[in-house]
């Protein structure tokens, strides 16, 4: 047992990292938060529409159990169920906590929290602060962490970059290698545990809704140090983003939650001003095809439909890859109060006011359901033991992951407004387990020989020295964009094995050309070039994980759509039939004539497919390539069944 405060290093100052820092300090620990930049600027601020919690403020009969079911179904049954259930049950507590911290959540006439609708559910379950909910939540947690900094229990290392974990002779994580982005100094931090809360990998696609820092480098380094990476191929494509040069800016799902309608002119050659096109000449394709969920089908469904409208039916606006997102039927006052922030952003970037003219949008890479493989500790009832040191631990002992960088909460497709919840949930939930982990250690970090740390430091010093000496002919930023273009063209909404095979070869080519990169800047002060080259190297390896996972998974599940393996659900199919079928099968008395024609065959194929593919993809770094294996998914609470939203 150690005779001092427990100390952890948290990498990343977004919602997960800040939530953990706050909780850990409250429990009398000492947390050091490492961040590329000032804490308030992390990517979590980009989340717009809201955060889910089944509080049932509108008396619709919503419950955490329904939230759990919607999340599991939205994720096409690929998420471990006990964890998701626990998250959904913690939702209301988390919202009340954030409210107590002063988040300016919109309120009802009586002054209670207000809720709105989001995709993949029929309930008003999403609490929101205008349309900048992520920003408001980050600020509240940032303020609490600043309070702990003021008290001396938390420390921040802003303008610092995490390079890798320090592993001892037994492979246990004992600290982190840190790079000061201003002085260029590389050094190590000793820690009882290290937590990666580093967010998603959108920059692998170069243009996405993600921020500049979202390279996935920290997670990829962990993978190259031996950590398992799970479900990499499940990349969420958000249906509505604003096309742009440097970035595809998000247009929140809340625009549809508040009544926004998606449509295209029925006639592809109709180039009239959208406001002059009469109702009956507009094709509200989501509403027609999904009369129950309408514009609020889950994101994977909406993105596929928009893609189909544009590329298969050639109905994009004026032949361009864009569709209308229309809010002009709502009053200006209503829109300003509930969506002001995002509508202003649209106006600023396009010069067009969405209160007056329908927005033009198209899908964009948005979120990674996959990430570092992490563990959890079940209790004796098969639920979650909040004190278990296993919670959120990667396959490297002592190295944890939380937030978008982990893989456990969203299965094959994330529901809107669940990301903020999963980030805060993981950060808060894991604190006790990390504390217990430190207590359980036989040997403390204080007893680890200093040579372990010296070696880790000099490894990275020489790595950065080598990078600075790279003097080839390739510009790293151009190479990054080429990688992004390859990924955007082949590993997006619609996937096929031929293109994926080609993609893997193209990535290998980029890897070869990477050796000929030129380090554009060799200054020893505030020089981002060597860091970027190291991040690019990581992105190349991460793109292999994503593309290879996609190539090998021969099925259609959630965001991973391979038309060649679509089981073609019959139009009149009811998912309850499948439950009946399973029951009858269990008792050995399947009555074929009871099911409409084609349904039984579909259900058999569905079940076979699940037996083969309802598994977590696990990538491990072997001989410079990802080696893919599969693991069982915990489906102990709800029987996996076909999804349906119409």
């Amino acid at each position, binding site marked *: 047992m150690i005779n001092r405060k427990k100390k952890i290093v948290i990498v990343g100052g977004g919602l997960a990292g800040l939530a953990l820092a706050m909780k850990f300090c409250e429990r009398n620990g000492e947390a050091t938060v490492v961040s590329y930049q000032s804490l308030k600027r*992390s990517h979590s601020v980009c989340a717009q529409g809201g955060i889910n919690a089944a509080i049932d403020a509108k008396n619709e009969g919503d419950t955490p159990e329904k939230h759990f079911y919607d999340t599991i179904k939205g994720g096409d049954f690929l998420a471990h169920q006990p964890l998701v259930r626990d998250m959904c049950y913690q939702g209301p507590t988390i919202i009340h906590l954030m409210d107590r911290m002063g988040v300016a959540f919109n309120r009802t006439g009586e002054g209670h929290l207000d809720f709105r609708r989001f995709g993949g559910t029929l309930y008003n379950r999403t609490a929101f602060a205008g349309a900048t909910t992520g920003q408001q939540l980050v600020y509240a947690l940032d303020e609490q962490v600043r309070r702990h900094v003021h008290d001396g229990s938390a420390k921040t290392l802003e303008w610092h970059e995490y390079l890798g974990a320090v592993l001892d002779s037994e492979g246990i994580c004992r600290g982190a290698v840190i790079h000061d982005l201003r002085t260029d100094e590389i050094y190590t931090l000793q820690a009882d545990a290290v937590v990666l809360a580093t967010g998603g990998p959108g920059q692998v696609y170069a243009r996405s809704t993600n*921020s500049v820092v979202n390279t996935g480098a920290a997670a990829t380094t962990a993978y190259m140090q031996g950590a398992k990476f799970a479900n990499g191929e499940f990349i969420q494509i958000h249906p509505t983003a604003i096309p742009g040069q440097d970035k595809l800016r998000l247009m929140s799902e809340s625009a549809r939650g508040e009544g926004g309608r998606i449509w295209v002119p029925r006639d592809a050659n109709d180039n009239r001003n959208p406001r002059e096109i009469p109702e009956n000449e507009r094709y509200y394709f989501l509403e027609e095809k999904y009369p129950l969920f309408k514009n609020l089908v889950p994101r994977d469904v909406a993105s596929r439909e928009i893609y189909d409208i544009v590329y298969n039916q050639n109905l994009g606006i004026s032949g361009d890859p864009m569709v209308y997102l229309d809010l002009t039927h709502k009053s200006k006052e209503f829109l300003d109060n509930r969506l002001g922030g995002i509508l202003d952003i649209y106006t600023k970037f396009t010069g067009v006011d969405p209160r007056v003219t329908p927005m033009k949008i198209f899908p964009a890479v948005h979120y990674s359901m996959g990430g570092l493989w992490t563990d959890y500790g079940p209790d004796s009832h098969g639920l979650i033991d909040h004190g278990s040191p296993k919670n959120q631990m990667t396959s490297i002992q002592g190295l944890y992951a939380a937030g978008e960088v982990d893989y456990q909460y969203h299965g094959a497709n994330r529901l809107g407004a669940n990301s903020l919840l999963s980030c805060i949930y993981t950060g808060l939930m894991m604190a006790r387990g990390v504390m217990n982990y430190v207590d359980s250690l036989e040997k403390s970090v204080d007893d680890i020989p200093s040579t372990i740390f010296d070696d880790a430091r000099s490894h990275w010093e020489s790595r950065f020295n080598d990078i600075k000496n790279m003097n080839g002919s390739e510009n790293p930023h151009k190479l990054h964009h080429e990688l992004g273009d390859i990924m955007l063209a082949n590993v997006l909404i619609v996937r096929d094995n031929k293109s994926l095979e080609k993609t893997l070869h193209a990535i290998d080519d980029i890897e070869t050309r990477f050796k000929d990169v030129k380090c554009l800047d060799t200054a020893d002060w505030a020089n981002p070039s060597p860091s970027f080259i190291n991040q690019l190297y990581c992105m190349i390896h991460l793109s292999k994980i994503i593309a290879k996972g996609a190539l090998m998974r021969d099925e259609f599940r959630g965001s991973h759509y391979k038309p060649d393996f679509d089981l073609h659900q019959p139009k009149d199919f009811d998912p309850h039939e499948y439950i009946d079928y399973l029951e009858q099968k269990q008792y050995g008395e399947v009555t074929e004539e009871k099911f409409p024609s084609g349904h039984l065959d579909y259900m058999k194929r569905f079940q076979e497919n699940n037996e083969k593919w309802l598994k977590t993809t696990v990538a491990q770094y072997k001989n410079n390539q990802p080696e893919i294996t599969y693991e069982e998914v915990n489906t102990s609470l709800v029987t996996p069944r076909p999804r349906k939203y119409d």
Partner: protein
Amino acid sequence: MTEKTITIKVKRQDKPKSPSYWQTFEVPDKPFANVISCLMEVQKTPTTRDGKTVSPVTWDCNCLEEVCGSCTMLINGRVQQACTALVDNLEKPIVLEPMSKFPVIRDLQVDRERMFDNLKKVKAWIEIDGSHDIGEGPIMPDQDRAKRYVMSECMTCGCCLEACPQFTLDNSFLGASTFNQVRLFNLHPSGEMGKEDRLNAIMGEGGITDCGNAQVCVEVCPKNIPLTESIADISRQTTWQMIKNLLTK
């Protein structure tokens, strides 16, 4: 080559204490281009207009959609976010400089730590009992919430301070963004319990009475936060607090 280009002039500086110098770049003119996408083009081809290969310009940015507050700089002499500075709306050549009221780190990057330190000085947070489950937050009218929400959109970007004649590199003036945070937290039912501490922290040198009422802060705020309203309100609160302090001494 007949490709249309844009000329950008950048004020550069290698280190905090080193002299500054100017470089001019030509970048391709693309649809929807903004200042950040131009700087990204410089990264891809770090060659000046006179054909000299140089190190790429460095700048701060992250979200590229004006919610993170990172990419503040002087664009044609006006302080603003580089991501929302659309090339089509700017006079050419586009002139880029780092903010002048904060120490330069390198090129267009400056050190805004002072803003974050000020948040500690005024205890810009709510003193919650703990993050465990102790029930709901306070009931609050939506119009009060809406008032607070506008103020809480402050991204700590520094535009208001750059524009403020009272705020200089070497004085201790707290500035509009900090006063706005005092108002934000004093307006919350639980935050109000720390009101006296906050008001006492903004009395004296660098405090609210040093505001010269130039009112430019509110003009440059990218989030349209009613900063002058916040300053007036906090002035009033501070005056009452001073009287209260005198009477209870």
